[in-house]
């Protein structure tokens, strides 16, 4: 333990930097706007450096721990404010602070003309702080603080341009939808505390291992797992709670890259990997996870085909890719989920930043029908977007192929007894979704960069501050796939592999296996490079399907009718009957009683001294009478 204590002060450093940065960026940035971005970026880089330091010094299979203080202790139940740093945390922290630093740097260029950037950078640093709290937390409660913190920052940043009411409403939607998931998460925490008497990850895991009566607890553990997954569906945008993520694109584009693609939305995947001992005990819950994941990936992927807003395409693509991560987690292959999380963080952050670069140069035009032919004027953005598109499409040798292929492999060899009957169908649906991914991503590439320019702005390449992060992320996206084996070896001390080992594959095999994705890419290139003719014919050929998809399966409308409207009706009843009738009635009634009794009592006040004196004498006689009686 001595070696752990030696690292006590330092582990707290990781989230401390962005917290300080957040405060400084706001206070100093208010006076000196240009400085705020640099303060926030330096804070992010410092945090990355300290994470890297711990990453280097972490012994194989070791754990760093940092107990800051005991938060509260009630009866036998104790909640400590503990940070814990193991290999899973290390990977997450590196991604969060690494990608985070790049996006901070990019933001300096992107938000150059924004008048209230100190607010922006302060929120961005605060987000980094919360996210680090989430991944460093040593128990469910600290994780939950970070969980809520990132939710808050997400809300603040989606509604960053709150003067636009639609944007502010998008922020509110994200917040409210997340609350539903959080309720499930909270119930899971309470259940853990109630049944196992602890919420600390290490202690919980030990209880699961050493408990001999575990079979009796399976139903309740399944309940806990499902509640945790409900929390994950909220934060990680899975069916049924994914509706907030596409609307979240109202925020500035770097925010979409950092929060709504690379880091925050993957919190659910991290949480599942962190509480793997619960999910491993609950195969029934794992079945639900798998089904929801495949369904989400498919639904979001098909919606993405018909979207014309470049950020909306990426948003639905994110939902779909998160579905892929949950497929891996649902099959018990947590390390593959984390693998896809990392590769996705690289290529999706790069795609979003590229879209930001495009939007920036097209004067805030987001409609891809108003773009086209940008490859010539924005070569760096084009090349990085191309690399990331190939990566996400799953074509070897770029990273997306390896992680996605591993996911499909994990689903095929799923040991879950509940899934024996329909595992093949899920694999088929997932494979189709993978092709769809290649299709819609290439479609967005073709509509944006190929063909001829259809808009009216004068697009130009973005400044170096914005292109450097693009280049770095694209390079990471192209090489990350080769580190699957290392990641597997690195993580297997922390998360069990459940039989999903790393499978080596020769480059030639990998290239051959990418054929489905290449098919999707070619189809999209053929259809969408010349936008004038073919897509319209296709959509005319399938009018019903087209209508269904471009209206996003009417999910928002369905929720509106079956959830929002009844809730509003209920709220109306509560407002009119309960609040106005009972609560206001009680308050106003008290006032009325006082008024009426005052009206009665004022008649005593005659203004005649005689009557006052008479009252006084009566009073004195009464007091004396009391004495005599006593």
């Amino acid at each position: 333990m001595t070696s752990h204590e030696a690292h006590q002060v330092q582990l707290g450093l990781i989230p401390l930097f962005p917290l300080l940065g957040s405060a400084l960026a706001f206070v100093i940035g208010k006076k000196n706007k240009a400085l705020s971005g640099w303060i926030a970026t330096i804070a992010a880089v410092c945090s990355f450096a300290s994470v890297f330091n711990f990453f280097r010094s972490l012994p194989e299979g070791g754990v760093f721990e940092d107990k800051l203080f005991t938060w509260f202790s009630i009866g036998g139940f104790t909640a400590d404010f503990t940070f814990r740093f193991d290999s899973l945390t290390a990977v997450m922290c590196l991604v969060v602070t690494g990608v985070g630093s790049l996006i901070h740097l990019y933001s300096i260029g992107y938000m150059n003309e924004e008048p209230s950037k100190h607010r922006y950078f302060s929120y961005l640093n605060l987000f980094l702080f919360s996210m680090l709290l989430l991944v460093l937390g040593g128990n469910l409660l600290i994780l939950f603080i970070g969980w809520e913190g990132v939710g808050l920052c997400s809300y603040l940043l989606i509604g960053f341009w709150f003067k636009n009411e639609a944007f502010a409403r998008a922020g509110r939607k994200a917040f409210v939808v997340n609350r539903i998931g959080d309720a499930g998460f909270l119930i899971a925490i309470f259940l853990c505390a109630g049944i196992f008497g602890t919420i600390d990850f290490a202690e919980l895991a030990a209880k699961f291992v050493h408990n001999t009566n575990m079979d009796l607890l399976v139903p309740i553990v399944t309940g806990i797992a499902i509640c945790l997954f409900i929390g994950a569906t909220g934060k990680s945008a899975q069916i049924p709670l994914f509706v907030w993520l596409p609307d979240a694109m109202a925020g500035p584009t770097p925010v979409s890259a950092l929060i709504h693609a690379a880091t925050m939305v993957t919190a659910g995947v991290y949480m599942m990997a962190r509480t793997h001992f619960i999910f491993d005990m609950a195969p029934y819950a794992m079945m639900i996870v798998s089904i929801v994941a495949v369904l989400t990936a498919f639904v979001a992927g098909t919606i993405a085909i018909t979207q014309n807003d470049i950020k909306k395409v990426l948003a639905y693509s994110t939902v779909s890719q998160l579905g892929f991560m949950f497929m891996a987690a649902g099959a018990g292959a947590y390390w593959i989920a984390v693998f896809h999380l990392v590769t996705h963080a690289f290529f999706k952050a790069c795609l979003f930043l590229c879209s930001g670069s495009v939007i920036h140069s097209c004067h805030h035009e987001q409609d891809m029908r108003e773009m086209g032919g940008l490859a010539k004027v924005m070569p760096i953005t084009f090349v990085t977007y191309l690399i990331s598109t190939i990566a996400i499409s799953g074509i070897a040798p770029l990273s997306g192929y390896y992680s996605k292929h591993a996911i499909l492999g994990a689903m095929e060899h799923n040991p879950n007894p509940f899934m024996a009957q329909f595992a093949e169908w899920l694999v088929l649906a997932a494979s189709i979704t993978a092709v769809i991914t290649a299709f819609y991503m290439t479609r967005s590439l073709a509509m944006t960069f190929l063909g001829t320019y259809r808009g009216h702005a004068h697009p130009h390449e973005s400044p170096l501050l914005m292109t450097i992060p693009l280049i770095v992320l694209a390079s990471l996206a192209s090489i990350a796939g080769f580190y699957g084996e290392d990641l597997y070896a690195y993580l297997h001390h922390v998360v069990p592999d459940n039989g999903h080992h790393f499978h080596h594959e020769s480059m030639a095999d990998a290239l051959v296996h990418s054929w489905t994705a290449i098919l999707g890419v070619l189809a999209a290139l053929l259809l969408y490079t010349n936008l004038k003719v073919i897509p319209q014919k296709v959509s005319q050929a399938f009018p019903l399907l087209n209508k269904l998809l471009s209206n996003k399966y009417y999910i928002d409308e369905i929720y509106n009718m079956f959830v929002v409207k009844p809730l509003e009706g209920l709220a109306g009843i509560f407002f009119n009957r309960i609040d106005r009738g009972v609560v206001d009635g009680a308050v106003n009634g008290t006032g009325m009683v006082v008024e009426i009794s005052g009206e009665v009592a004022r008649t005593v006040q005659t203004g005649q001294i005689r009557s006052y004196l008479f009252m006084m004498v009566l009073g004195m006689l009464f007091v004396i009478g009391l004495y005599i009686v006593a």
Partner: protein
Amino acid sequence: MPLNYYIVLATILFSIGMFGVILRKNTIVMFMCIEMMLNAVNLSFVAFSKFHGNLEGQIGVFFIMVVAAAEASVGLAIIISVFRAIVSVETSDSNELKL
């Protein structure tokens, strides 16, 4: 003479004063009635002092006389001020505080 006589006389004087204060309207008469009540108390003080054979009651009487003198000057000053304001010494005429 027995103590009872003094106490009965003091009680009668006090009651007359009290009913005078309550029933009369003229502030000066009311004032005089208050003095009568004070003197009824003084009488009982002196009687008890004699009865118990010590001087404490008589000292109390002196205090009451001093306070009554001060009170009389203040009270008469108030009555004069009220008279200047409403040209009356009747209590029924000074009912401005009524709501």
